[in-house]
């Protein structure tokens, strides 16, 4: 399938680089056997842009320079996607909690939090329209 977005970092469920949504919930894919995923809906970073166009969350990551080296980004975005799907108006603590399982070894969490917060505001105003 040549889908290379999901990254294996630690391979032990610590770093979150391999985060995918399994039936809508973020999981560490390194700790899910392929056979266990049989019959489930798996969403990866590849499903987030449409027709070559980034979605608002991805645009926000770009604007805030939240990708940095980029290795953790596919996982962080899937965790953030899940957060914004269950909570349209997260506060900073809720954002931090949602990405607690995603290591960024560039350690630029500020930009990531800002990007998620702005995407939430954008999405909320879109819903109001």
């Amino acid at each position, binding site marked *: 399938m040549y889908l290379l977005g999901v990254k294996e970092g630690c*391979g*032990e*469920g*610590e770093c*979150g680089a391999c*985060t995918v949504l*399994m039936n809508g*919930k*973020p*999981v*560490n894919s390194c*700790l*899910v*056997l392929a*056979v*266990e995923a049989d019959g489930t809906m798996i969403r990866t970073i590849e499903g987030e842009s449409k027709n070559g166009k980034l979605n608002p969350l991805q645009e926000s990551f770009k604007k805030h320079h939240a990708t940095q080296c980029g290795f953790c980004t596919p996982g962080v975005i899937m*965790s953030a996607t899940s957060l914004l799907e269950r909570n349209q108006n997260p506060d900073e603590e809720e954002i931090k*909690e*949602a990405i*607690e*399982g*995603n*290591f960024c070894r560039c350690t630029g969490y500020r930009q990531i939090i800002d990007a998620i917060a702005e995407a939430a505001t954008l999405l909320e105003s879109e819903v109001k329209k």
Partner: protein
Amino acid sequence: MLNSFSYYKPKSEIEIIETLKSFGDDAKILAGGTDLLVYMKQQIAGPKVLVDIKGVPDFSKIDVDSGGNLIIGAAVTCNDVVENQYIRNHFPVLATAAKTIGSYQIRNRATVVGNICNASPAADMAGAFLVLDAVVIIATEKGNREIPIKHFFVGVKKTSLQQNEFVKAIKVPADYKDAEASYLKASRIKGHDLGTCNAAMSRSKNGKIKIAIGSCNITPVLLPDFDSNNIDLANILTTAMNSIKPIDDLRGSKEYRKHLVQVFIKRLLNGKGHSH
């Protein structure tokens, strides 16, 4: 890398037992996999057969039985417990403890029963279940047997489970519905570390105080009951110190752990534990 293994996903309790009987010690139960798959990758465990219990629909349920007891199935995840409104309303300490396990992603896979069966001295659910006087429901060849959770832990990562048995659910007695209970945990980093130590407390309607301590002995420790109408703090602290044997490790020294346990017990007795 994982060694090769066979994978079975039985659809019933009986099939699980039959599979366990066929493969004996070569078989391991797979629930959330957040501990087992790590051990397999690290070559600490090398089961030839994995028996996935998630194929039995009842095991994913959180139920209340006819006696009002809470029943949590073996495939119920930590986040299922955190998000369950009935548990949050009536047994909130279980949600509090479950929320401290791993990260959000881990809690979407890790099961509360798995946390117990892994039998780590640091198991977050152990303390909460111990102070709620929970009962482990074990499926065996001859039907179910139930044992109080205080008799379930027998050593580091060792339980009283016998061959061809597995835990199908955990039961919290109705007596503890709406009882005051709380949980405190110290860890170096949230989301990525086991606890340095933890403590849980409950105050039952019939005037008993139960206190459990984690990461301070080879198993989670339940202290003898205390009388909530006549609290003797000095006695409680002495009993606690006599019941634990903490070690020095990378998460903290034994002196630090002893200190934390005393601080936690005072906070819990003063109603300063976390709850939802």
